[in-house]
């Protein structure tokens, strides 16, 4: 590998390099400006936007890279393709939003002297996620998952303000370690059978019916355990509510969006590159018969959304409720994966994009309110719609969108999902999903009920929020409404990005 080829290959990981550089810059600046940390978020912005620039610039770049020497040409460590780029954009945009989020959050402000640490860890997460969405080798997959995990363990307990931070951190750690251990064990089994950790090699291997079904099933389930933990799919979701509740709210929002997106990208790439034997003209994925991904994911997803929705019914802590709701949404998105077609993939990406906006929006409003009232308890939301009309309306929009009612983006997301399901003849599943969304209505609307229908004695206590926050919230809410009415650009984007490098 000469310098020249090194230079050409730079394009493939330019965003990752940018992020890494930014990470280092943050650490350095943290050391230099010991007292004044104000600059650090701006470095973070800089890093993210430069990375975004590189992603956008190389959006249509495809190819695999960083081969292990013994393997043939098409088996690199990473696959650069539009699919990956889309998720990178998703991750970077949500990171940018989260950085704004963090700047505002009182929790983070209170530990501002450690801002360098905080942003460095976030960048660690970003880096891990960026690799997750492009990795096409099990080793790199494992490494990137670990990179993401290790950073997020710390972030979950970052603020140290309350007992629950530390507890969240510990639970996340132990759970995560076990899950990644399971995944690793699964990977080792796959390696034993295939003889390589490369997904393309796995695909080649599966073209022939050679594998031991039991071992292979075990391996697949174990690997899924690792991914399932990242996307908090039942029954690997147990950490989610506890950690989401315990972690600082900015991190909760981040985990619920970006790290989930990375997990999904990983899962999709795993299936798409590792297991798909061929794709027919209609875009349906024909999966190697050894492992029935479709039934498996459907079972998991039904379990996930049902559990998420029904558990959310009883939550009085809004953060915890949103945690369960994000579990439920993972269930819906999994259905899109279960369709196993380009169509389903499109639905997943649409869903994710909208989910990112509405979920971050919802968490942001909850954060702003919690910062003022010091509580995330639903009873403290009584009359909130009158105390802070803007936040009330915005939260209403986000929650309605999460329910999936028109004219919000959430509806479009669900619509495309159901379109994919119906198209694949999974009507029964679609019905279950629809019924689930009716159940979900109940707990989302419950919040609205508390905000508007229940009066409290503090009704007159109006509270002010800063102009930038107003803009942020209004912008997100407007975007959600806009996406509900005019979503052509999003679809345009999405339909172009389902290209994979094999």
């Amino acid at each position, binding site marked *: 590998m000469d310098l020249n080829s090194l230079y050409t290959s730079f394009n493939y990981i330019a965003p990752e390099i940018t992020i890494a550089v930014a990470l280092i810059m943050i650490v350095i600046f943290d050391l230099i400006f010991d007292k004044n940390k104000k600059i650090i978020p701006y470095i973070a912005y800089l890093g993210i936007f430069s990375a975004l620039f590189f992603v956008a610039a190389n959006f249509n770049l495809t190819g695999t890279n960083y081969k292990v020497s013994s393997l043939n040409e098409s088996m690199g460590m990473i696959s650069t393709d539009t699919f990956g780029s889309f998720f990178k954009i998703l991750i970077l945009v949500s990171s940018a939003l989260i950085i704004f989020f963090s700047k505002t959050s009182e929790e983070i402000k209170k530990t501002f002297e450690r801002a360098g640490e905080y942003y460095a860890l976030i960048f660690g997460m970003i880096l891990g996620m960026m690799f997750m969405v492009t990795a096409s080798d099990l080793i790199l997959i494992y490494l990137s998952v670990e990179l993401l995990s290790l950073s997020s363990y710390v972030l979950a307990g970052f603020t140290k303000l309350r007992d629950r931070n530390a507890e969240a951190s510990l639970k996340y750690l132990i759970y995560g370690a076990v899950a990644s251990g399971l995944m690793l064990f699964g990977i080792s089994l796959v390696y034993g059978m295939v003889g390589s950790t490369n997904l393309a090699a796995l695909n080649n291997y599966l073209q022939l019916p050679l594998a031991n079904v039991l071992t292979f099933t075990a391996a697949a389930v174990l690997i899924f355990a690792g991914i399932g933990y990242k996307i908090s799919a039942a029954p690997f979701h147990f950490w989610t509510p506890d950690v989401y509740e315990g972690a600082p709210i900015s991190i909760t929002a981040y985990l619920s969006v970006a790290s989930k997106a990375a997990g999904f990208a990983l899962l999709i790439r795993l299936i798409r590159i590792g297991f798909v034997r061929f794709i027919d003209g209609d875009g349906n994925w024909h999966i190697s018969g050894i492992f029935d991904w479709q039934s498996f994911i459907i079972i998991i997803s039904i379990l996930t959304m049902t559990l998420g929705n029904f558990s959310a019914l009883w939550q009085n802590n809004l953060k915890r409720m949103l945690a369960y709701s994000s579990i439920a949404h993972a269930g819906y998105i999994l259905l899109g994966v279960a369709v196993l077609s380009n169509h389903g993939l499109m639905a997943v990406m649409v869903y994710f994009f909208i989910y990112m906006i509405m979920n971050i929006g919802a968490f942001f409003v909850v954060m702003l309110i919690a910062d003022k009232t010091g509580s995330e308890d639903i009873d403290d939301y009584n009359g909130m719609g009158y105390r802070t009309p803007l936040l009330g309306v915005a939260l209403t929009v986000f929650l309605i969108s999460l329910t999936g*009612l028109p004219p919000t983006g959430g509806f479009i997301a669900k619509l495309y999902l159901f379109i994919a399901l*119906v198209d694949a003849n999974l009507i029964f599943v679609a019905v279950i999903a629809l019924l689930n969304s009716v159940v979900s209505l109940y707990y989302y609307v419950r919040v609205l009920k508390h905000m*508007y229908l229940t009066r409290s004695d503090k009704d007159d206590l109006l509270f002010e929020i800063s102009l930038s926050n107003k803009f942020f919230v209004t912008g997100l809410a407007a975007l959600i409404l806009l996406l509900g009415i005019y979503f052509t650009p999003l679809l345009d984007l999405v339909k172009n990005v389902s290209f994979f490098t094999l």
Partner: protein
Amino acid sequence: MEGFPILSLLTFLPIIGMVVVLALPKKLELGIRYTALVFTGLQVVFAAVLLANYNYAAAGIYEESSFQFIEKFRWIEIPGVSWLGTVKIDYFMGVDGLSVPMILLTAIISFIAVLSSWNISKSVKGYFALFLLLDTGMMGVFVSLDFFLFYVFWELMLLPMYFLIGIWGGPRKEYAAIKFFIYTLFGSVFMLLVMIGLYFSAMEVMPDGSKVFTFNIIAMMDPSNFTVEGILSPFNPNNYRFVAYLALFVGFAIKIPMFPFHTWLPDAHVEAPTAISVILAGVLLKMGTYGILRISYPIFPEITRDLMYYIALFGMINIIYGALCAMAQRDFKKLIAYSSISHMGYVLLGMASLTSTGINGAVLQMFNHGTITAMLFLLVGVLYDRTHTRGLNDFGGLATQLPVYTGFVTVAFFAAIGLPSLSGWVSEALVFIGAFSVESIRTLTMISTLGILLGAGYMLWTLQRIFLGKLNEKWAGLKDLEFREYAMLVPLTVIIILLGIYPSAMLDIMNTSVNTLVDFLAVNVSNSASIGLLN
């Protein structure tokens, strides 16, 4: 009128009103009220303009070219997704004889509902903003010809309604609001599913000759537009059309509301503020039956045929059951709510007949029930404003104290129990005429006529309990109607009497369309049968 987007104007005028209301300062309550009044008033004016320019001879129903005031342009278009073809959703509005009466109804009822909301004092701004949003949703449902658009408007009115009941409602408002919300959403998710299924089964031919999947309701009515393997395509031997029909029907039935999906209605009515009850009974319930006529019937004609007996059966149950329940009520508003259920049963019965007279009667009944029940709820509201009670046994002898009010009540009551020369009777009679002429549902029709008797029973009993007898001294100080109340009651009374005497004013609008629909149902069945799709 060529090219003038009157339907969009009708639909989005309230939204503009909402923006204006939101822009006004909170303190300017009177200004907000007048804004709402002006915008709904403009809506009435535009509805009248629409009627004036409406061509009575054009049929609509399944023929896109004979719809009127068409506004159609591409809303969403994503060309060339390889495996999906072009994804397109149209912004497609148009009216025919089925929708024009509903548009008129919506405009009139909204205007009157604003008048009856005049006394709302709790967060006036929010109330009228939500109200106008609701108005847009309702109007949109009646003008949309694209399923997607239809669905968006359908769901759009959910949330304002929830808040309007939930914030400005009575003591158990939260329960009622959430019940309304969940029931309706439950129904609409099924609708969503069917909508998607239809999307994948029907392809529309584009001007350039290519075929794309479509949400166009009109296109879905033409069997030749269906793909061979679409799950809701009649050409697919394993199609799910039957199941889809049921699902869609449930979605609409909840709105009607049809037994046994009706229990949200009494609660919602009792708790809702007067104006919202008026809207609910006057317009919202019609969306269910309108949906069935606009979507279920022409898209699934063969299943409609198969199931007409059951639709009639449920119509009959609605009529009898609603009436019996109404009789047992002690709350004035609840009684009216149950009577609504009973009266919507006539609509179902008329639709089930699949005859011109029956469906004409059904559509006319939708309009008439809208005006009559709206008036009844307004009257309940008038009384409640003064006495703060709705118990039927708390009154007595009010006719002595409030003669004019009693006069209006009498008109409304007799219209509701189907007194000839008032509008309610004409539609009920047409429904019965239509239904009776069909042999399979003749027995059901005869049983349904008992509804006329039961209706007279509970209405007159109510009239007696509240207005006749000795004046309950507690109410000796009540004042009769004031100007604003006249303003909302007189137009409705005029409509009720006018349509009772000259129903053609409304029937002529819908006639051509209804005939076409009936013809379409019959012809389509024979076509399908001849190409071997049925059995």
